């Protein structure tokens, strides 16, 4: 038997990949299929699942409602569509802000003296490796009514003799946006840096020799060559922002509800796993559609694994 295995390259390959495949199938593919099956079911009174084939959860998500004010039998309830839209726009805004902040920093590190690059990268890794939940907590402390931001503004107002009421910064959409940007910024810096660092200096020299100014060099050389990094970074930022529920939970309170919060509550508080499953599949489809069109337009960079 060993002899046969030695000669059969295909069997060797299958055998080596086997444990990983077991894990991928049992813990990724089967759970996704289960989610799909559950999403067509109905909630039983005790919070369990009655398996059936009903599209009720999906129609409810897209606004179909039988609980209407004016006695009508069906009406449009925009609640869940609004939540989906809010998540999409927040993910989009976060990604744009993160690119705008990450790019100059990545550029700075990539063009620094090679000896110093490691130190600058080191400074990016510390916040990245500091736990996700701890980073949200840091912003919670800063944004509180008595937090540092209000304290500083208050102090400045005091010096300028302007009357000042502490601002309500926490539990607002702005707080959630800032928190998201902070959480995911390092995930954009690293891939952009990786693609910028690969650019050969002779290309800049060639551009200068050919008479390009700094702006033109940036637009025609630097930016196109760093696009793989930006694409990889976008995937690493956009997808998690769409699904995160901690940031909105802690910095948004009950004010800012995202798809992630909706799903989490169906599984823990409201106890309707069938509706949560449907929402989760819609979330997955949304992110896949966005990723598909985005990567088709710009390509899929290998920088994705760098972060």
């Amino acid at each position, binding site marked *: 038997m060993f002899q046969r295995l030695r000669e059969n390259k295909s069997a060797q390959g299958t055998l080596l990949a086997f*444990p*990983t495949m077991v894990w991928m199938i049992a813990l990724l*593919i089967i759970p996704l299929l289960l989610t799909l099956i559950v999403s067509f079911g109905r909630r039983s009174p005790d919070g369990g699942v009655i398996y059936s084939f009903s599209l009720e959860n999906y129609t409810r998500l897209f606004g179909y409602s039988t609980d209407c004010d004016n006695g009508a039998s069906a009406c449009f309830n925009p609640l869940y569509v609004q939540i989906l839209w809010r998540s999409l726009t927040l993910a989009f805004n976060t990604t744009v802000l993160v690119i705008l902040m990450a790019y*100059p920093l990545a550029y700075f590190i990539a063009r620094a003296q090679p000896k110093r690059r490691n130190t600058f990268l080191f400074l990016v890794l510390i916040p990245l490796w500091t736990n996700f939940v701890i980073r949200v907590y*840091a912003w919670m402390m800063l944004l509180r009514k008595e937090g540092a931001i209000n304290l500083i503004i208050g102090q400045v107002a005091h010096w300028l003799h302007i009357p000042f009421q502490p601002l309500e910064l926490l539990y607002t959409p702005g707080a959630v946006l800032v928190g998201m940007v902070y959480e995911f910024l390092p995930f954009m810096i690293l891939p952009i840096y990786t693609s910028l660092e690969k650019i050969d200096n002779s290309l800049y020299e060639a551009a200068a020799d050919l008479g390009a100014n700094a702006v033109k060099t940036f637009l025609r050389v630097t930016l196109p060559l760093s696009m793989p990094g930006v694409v990889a970074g976008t995937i690493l930022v956009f997808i998690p922002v769409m699904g995160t529920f901690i940031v909105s939970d802690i910095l948004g309170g009950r004010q800012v509800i995202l798809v992630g919060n909706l799903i989490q509550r169906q599984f823990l508080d409201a106890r309707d796993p069938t509706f949560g499953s449907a929402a989760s599949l819609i979330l997955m489809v949304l992110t896949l559609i966005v990723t598909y069109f985005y990567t088709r337009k710009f390509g899929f960079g290998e920088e994705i694994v760098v972060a």
Partner: protein
Amino acid sequence: MNPHRRSPLVLVSTILVYFFLYAPIVGLVLYSFNASRANVTFEGFISSFSQRVVTEGSLVKSSPCGPFHWFCELSKNNEVIDAARNTLTIAFVATIISTIIGTMAALALQRYNFRLKPFSQLSLYIPIVIPEIVMGIGILTLFSQFFAWLNATLSLTGESRLTLGLGTVIVSHIAFMVPFVTLVVQARLQGFDKAYEEAAMDLGANEWITFQRVTFPMILPGVLSGALLAFTLSLDDFVITFFTNGPGSTTLPIYVYGLLRRIITPQVNALSTVWIATVFLAVLALQLIQNREAKS
């Protein structure tokens, strides 16, 4: 043209972004020395040492540990110690398993042709392109359905019932860690010159000896960085752990999250400070090792 020349615009935005990255962390660390138990405003440091903790209202006046009062309290907090132990247990076990099977899969995908290869390669991208919460609730559904069925079939009751716990967290962590290990090791194998292996075989080494003496030492840096990445992903994970943990398998991120929804004493800050300091030392050690390797 000096390639290291910087425009002032880049310099200013760099400084601002670094400030943005570090201001919250500095604040967090500062508050871990707060004399105020309520931790709403910073009321100064705990300035003196004493035999017993002396408090005045919500202010801690003096403590056996002085300014490090909250760190001492932290070290006496059993919940934190349990959570830290769980976090490390999960990370170590899941890293060892995912590194071994991930490296095997990378070898298979890079070196062999087999029928399921395209499917295997594609499935590795699933955890990257779908939000973690989708995976989390899927795995939760799987475990709860499977355990309910198994408990009923084997008529398990009470203590012997299968429930969510350390085991389910470890198994789930491996699922999202393996793809990262595999992709990192694969990247390393791509730049691998097959001539070394052929030379070893020509010199009479069999496949196993060749792997042991040539292939493995050459891919070892890739394997180690894959393992390190996996380890940090596990330590940092919140979402998957949130859906798969059970009583007695709380990890540090889950514990901190629980605290944030209740009362926050400077103990949470002390815990954060310890975490940040650990990360700082770990990254620093890693950089020094890499620098030494690059020099030699």
